[in-house]
């Protein structure tokens, strides 16, 4: 019997399962496929031992630009952080999201009032729009951007927008809006490992390895 909540049931059921499987499968495929390529040993005499500690440190130090570089990059780095931070707040601070994470992983933590989440979602959306405008107008970004950049943007924007719409019952029946929201988030999860969004995991490795190589040389990382 077809019912009103068929789409929502699909989103909460098989679609969610498929998205999570694709996320995990794809991420391991990409990461392992890279890490088991040739890794020649460096036979030069290290200036610094236990350089891997420098690698770990670099994961943190690269979070913020160095003083000498700030004049030209700080403003858009700040906008990017505003976006990332508010996105994190929305994803990790709203109780329904926490309950989903608890269902999958067992981890949970206290949530935030929904007013705060709404504000954060608004900030995230606005900063995303600003970042898109920047990408579409700055000569360097126009040169180097590709389909991945724009599609990933859309896939991050849509769950935020549809989440707000669902919460405030804007534009349709609640069940449908909620289903669209969940499906858009599932699409994001499935797309993540195959796109630039994999940087959510890769950054640990790419920063870490550069930090290790240059710490070994006694150089600044």
């Amino acid at each position: 019997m077809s019912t009103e909540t068929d789409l929502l049931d699909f989103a909460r059921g098989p679609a969610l399962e498929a998205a999570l499987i694709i996320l995990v499968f794809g991420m391991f495929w990409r990461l392992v496929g890279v890490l088991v390529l040739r890794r020649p040993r460096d036979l030069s005499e290290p200036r610094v031992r236990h350089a891997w500690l420098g690698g770990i440190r670099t994961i943190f130090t690269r979070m913020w630009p160095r003083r000498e570089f700030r004049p030209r990059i700080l403003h858009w780095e700040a906008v990017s952080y505003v976006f990332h931070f508010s996105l994190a707040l929305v994803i990790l601070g709203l109780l329904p999201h926490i309950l989903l994470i608890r269902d999958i992983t067992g981890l949970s933590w206290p949530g935030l009032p929904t007013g705060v989440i709404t504000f954060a979602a608004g900030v995230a959306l606005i900063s995303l729009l600003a970042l898109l405008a920047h990408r579409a107008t700055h000569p360097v970004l126009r040169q180097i951007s590709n389909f991945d950049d724009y599609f990933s943007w859309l896939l991050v924007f849509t769950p935020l927008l549809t989440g707000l719409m669902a919460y405030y019952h804007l534009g349709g029946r609640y069940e449908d809006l909620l289903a669209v929201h969940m499906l858009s988030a599932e699409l994001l999860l499935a797309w993540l490992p195959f796109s630039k969004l994999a940087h959510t995991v890769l950054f640990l490795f790419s920063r870490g390895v550069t930090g290790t190589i240059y710490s070994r040389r006694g150089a600044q990382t």
Partner: protein
Amino acid sequence: MTSTDTQFPLELNQPRLSIQKPEPRYDKQGEMADTERLDRAMRGFVKDFGATAALYMESCVHCGQCAEVCQYYVQTGDPRYTPIWKLEPFKQAYKREVGPFAPFFRLFNLKRRVTVQELEDWQDLIYDSCTQCGRCTMVCPMGIDIASLVGLARHGMAAAGLVPHELWATVERAKREGSPLGATPAVLKDRIAWLEDEHGVEIPLDLERADVLMTISSIEVMKYPQSIVALARIMKRMGASWTFRSEGYEATNFSMFAGDQQGQREASLKLIEAAIAVGARTLILPECGHAYQALRWQGANLYGKPLPFRVLQIAEYLAEGIRQGKLQLQPVQNSATFHDPCQIVRRGGATEAPREVLHALGVDLREMDAHGAYNWCCGGGGGVVTIHRADPLRYKTYQIKMQQVEDTGAEMLVSTCSNCRQTFDDGQAHFHWDKTAQSLLELVADHLVTEQE
């Protein structure tokens, strides 16, 4: 290979021609068909992707910050000079051939094959507008070592014979004669004899055994021979047991600039074998940036074993001597600022040694605002100074250096790399500037405390 060195002679002592409107030129070596060239380039790219390079190729998020710290983009506003964009065909080859999704990309043609036209278009991005200075590597939020990747990309370009002519001419000459600038063993011997005579110093050549194997760059032999005299004076004062060896003295490695892996290996092996032959415990590299990169950090890997001796850049050796009390120095009266050679400091890790020496010289050191690992490149490294058509670009980037030095208010500019020195000299001439780079080595030699006989 064509004799490009006669077609485009490299005459560093002649005033440079200023090229008004350089026509786009796609330099090619050899008579290969385009398909063969492309195949060689692809193979050259593909075989270089280890786990680290692959990780970098997967990690770029197209943030564009690398451009904002690259002297070429900053001075021209041309987005083609975005560092990660310089690697675009290389990245494309990676994704299509070696990446974890490569079979899919090939099957559905989601990543196109690189074309010869693209490689030709990219020649000036990979060579003319990149000194591998590594500033991009410092800023990248994902930590991608773009500078090293440019070096890897050059392997494929060199295999395909797509290197700018003058650079390739220099490489050929170095392989043929043992020196890129004509400082053959015979010339070296001559020069050494002449310098010994002229300046009353001892410059050991071809001793059977010595604690230290000294190496030198052809730029010093041909252009700044006074630095060899400086070296001799200092080594004598330190009471060191040292020698040059005519089968392994050339510290420069133009093959490394061009991407000629075999040539690079051969050049490094000469030095390594010479050091082993004399039983050296230390191999000293001269005031030369990429020599440090080539031997200190890449030498052992080309050799296949850890090196049985230490490798020090001359400034490191001097700093060590100062620490051990073997060198007493008179104070320098002027204020000075220090230009950090990219390959020694940012990429090589020897940040403190030159400063220890300057401190021992009592110099009033006025650091540039962006100094140490954040220094701006002189613009001449990576083989760029040999490429005439890149001169206008190089002068544009040089303006950053002049401004940096002026802003410190220092009377003197010191550095410890002859290629930087040569670039500064050329820039000084072009802009009629009142400063150029002094050699740290020569500064030390000029300020040795007079010996009580």
